[in-house]
């Protein structure tokens, strides 16, 4: 009904040449493994996320497709951050399942922050499946300009 496309045209030879048939089977075996991993290559560490220093704040960005606010839990301490989430992937009722690469999962990740943050001012938003957390640094950790004076 619906198969993954691959551009190798071994399909037509299958009945006529047994040697090619053998080769095709071998190719299928190779590509089967490749295909099976195709959607998962990016999920070795899940979720994909980034922690950046934006000067006055640290910014955490995490890709959480299919998550709602209720599925995500975030807790911040002065120098660490924990992100937890669960996602269920249920087949829609009445449908047969052909392929299921999107996984239901639960994860928890904790980070040591490189500097202290003001836990009362942290803001987190979830939009289009991307979580964005701004963690303002405590005043002592903010970057400061030092004026050079002539003497």
């Amino acid at each position, binding site marked *: *009904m*619906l198969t993954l496309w691959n551009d190798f045209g071994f399909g037509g030879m299958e009945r006529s040449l047994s040697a090619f048939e053998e080769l095709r089977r071998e190719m299928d075996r190779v590509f089967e493994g490749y295909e099976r991993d195709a959607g998962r290559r990016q999920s070795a560490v899940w979720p994909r996320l980034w922690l950046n220093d934006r000067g006055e704040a640290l910014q955490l960005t995490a890709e959480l497709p299919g998550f709602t606010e209720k599925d995500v839990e975030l807790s911040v301490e002065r120098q660490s951050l924990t992100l937890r989430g669960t996602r269920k992937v249920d087949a829609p009722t009445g449908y047969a399942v052909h392929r299921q690469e999107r996984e239901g999962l639960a994860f928890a990740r904790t980070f040591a922050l490189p500097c202290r943050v003001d836990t009362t001012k942290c803001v987190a938003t979830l939009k289009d499946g991307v979580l964005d957390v701004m963690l303002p640094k405590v005043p002592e950790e903010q970057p400061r300009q030092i004026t050079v004076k002539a003497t």
Partner: protein
Amino acid sequence: MSDTKQMVKPAVATPELDLVHLSPPVDIYENDNEVLIVADMPGVTPDMTTVRLEPPRLLLEGRPPKRAQERAVLYERVFRVSDDIDPNGIAAHIEAGVLSVHLKKSDASKPRRIEVRAGK
């Protein structure tokens, strides 16, 4: 132009060389009326999504907004679709970074109930 990387780029555009192609994980479901494809494309909005049918291929593409200091990403997946899919009956929507594509089956391919009549 605040980005210094942009400023040193040659005048002639060499587009998308540093584009990262990602293959999003997909689910494929089917019932009597349609085939449903679900794909994870975090960050992608409806206007940055392309669903294109070039029989027999169906292309799904999504471009999330580029993040500062990261390479631009293109989510991309291609399927072979059999001809019992109605080319005019494809509908797609994206929500919370999850793309759903509904492929309606043509009427001829739907299972039909054949009435059994009593013989005389």
